[in-house]
């Protein structure tokens, strides 16, 4: 089984289709797709340049075989991108891309930054502390988009920047923590969920406050839409927290994933899903919190 409880066979069959669909979408949407595509491919291949991994390979193979192996694995890793570029008749780009992945082989570097990024959320670890450090670059982009939305008078762009923060915070709750961290709480299941939700909504509000205030002032006549969308962000964040713990200690399963997708298409259904996920979470958490 892979993420969302999808059977492995179906997952691997679907993967090429999803890849082609997304690639197609990218090439349809922008004229700079080949550049974006190249960067994507390089970032994907760069995962193979981890020093620990390659030191291990170096200790097993001699210099010649090591280089041969690294070139081969980089080219294989890049193959889906190369094939799609050829399909798009971007022959020169596909050659340049393969040349680059061969050059990358010469360098070993870690793609994980170990520099401690300061966060305003360290008083209450961990979702926002970890999440902020992984997605810190999203926030200046969102604030910049808000500035642009005001300067060009585009309310929708401003709303998008707020939703961008909402989606980013939403992603902080997609991964299940080790049961030890839940077990440690001396709260009841209800109190635990309340604490998690309260922290999430406060921190989300803090992050989106500059956008909300700016939009409320500059687009005052559309403040009602802004409030509705802000409250919707609250509702979706609450949903993801409850959905997450409703499958505890496992990650969110396929059926819960489908329910969340449905709620994106028809938000009023959250009125049913939130209490449903809540009651399931309480049941799951009771076993670990000895409630």
């Amino acid at each position, binding site marked *: 089984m892979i993420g969302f409880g999808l059977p492995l066979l179906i997952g691997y069959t679907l993967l090429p289709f999803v890849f082609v669909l997304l690639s197609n979408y990218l090439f349809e949407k922008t004229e700079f797709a080949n550049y974006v595509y190249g960067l994507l491919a390089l970032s994907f291949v760069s995962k193979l340049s981890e020093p620990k991994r390659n030191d291990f390979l170096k200790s097993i193979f001699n210099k010649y075989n090591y280089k041969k192996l690294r070139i081969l694995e980089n080219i294989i890793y890049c193959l889906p991108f190369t094939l799609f570029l050829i399909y798009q008749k971007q022959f020169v780009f596909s050659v340049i891309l393969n040349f680059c992945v061969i050059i990358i082989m010469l360098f070993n570097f870690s793609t*994980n930054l*170990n520099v*401690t*990024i300061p966060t305003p959320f*360290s*008083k*209450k*670890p*961990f979702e926002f*502390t*970890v999440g902020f*450090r*992984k997605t810190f670059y999203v926030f200046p982009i969102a604030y910049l988009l808000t500035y642009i939305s005001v300067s060009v008078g585009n309310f929708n762009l401003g709303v998008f920047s707020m939703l961008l923060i909402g989606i980013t915070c939403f992603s902080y709750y997609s991964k299940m*923590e*080790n*049961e*030890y*961290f839940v*077990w*440690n*709480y*001396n709260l009841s299941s209800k109190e635990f969920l309340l604490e998690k939700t309260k922290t999430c909504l406060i921190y989300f509000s803090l992050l989106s406050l500059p956008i909300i205030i700016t939009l409320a002032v500059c687009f005052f006549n559309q403040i009602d839409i802004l409030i509705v969308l802000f409250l919707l962000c609250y509702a979706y964040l609450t949903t993801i927290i409850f959905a997450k713990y409703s499958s505890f200690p496992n990650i969110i399963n396929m059926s819960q994933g489908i329910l969340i997708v449905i709620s994106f298409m028809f938000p009023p259904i959250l009125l049913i899903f939130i209490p449903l996920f809540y009651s399931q979470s309480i049941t799951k958490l009771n*076993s*670990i*919190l*000895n409630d």
Partner: protein
Amino acid sequence: MIKIEKLSKFYGKKQVLNSIDLEFKKGKIYGIVGENGAGKTTLFRCISGLENYKGNITSDYTKLKDHLGLLLTEPFFFSKITGKEYIQLLANARQIELTNIEDKNIFDLPLKQYASTYSTGMKKKLALTAILLQENNVFILDEPFNGVDIQSNLIITEIIKRFKKLEKTVIISSHIFSTLAETCDEIYLMKNGEIVKKVEQADFNKLENEMKEFTVGNRIDKLELK
């Protein structure tokens, strides 16, 4: 006091704990020894409430887990949490207000660094520091000396001795017999999910010799070392 009666645990059809009866009293230090796979960690997980089990575990507390500091064999760390934030996280979980965490950093850990980048020994020391600051009354320490340097080993041993004076209950598993002999009041020997022997302080040396004889025996001779 913690009382364990007829504790059994199955993983599928495999029985890993078999009708265990134990009693852990206040102000006493208990050691659990046994080979890898004897069931020590499972026993600790059952006492903590991390596993379902058959039998009874009762204590003086309404919820034992809320007074229990659990040190796992291999503590788990998030990828982008610093040492200080890890301590904060575990204190928050128990509603403990911590001030001056740096002053309480008795193992001189680089608290501003991501905990996931720590060495095995440093991770163990960080996890131990975090549960020490939770103000627990009961401690379960699964291999607390594993991968830890000699200086820290001495500190941990002294902490355990201090716990005894503070009337705390401590249960330790360790493969380093000397540290157990120095700190424990009683040692239980586990084998195949059962408690096969209870040894009191006076007989610790005898137990060590017996274990050496049983474990080592003439195994090394089979290597025909030259």
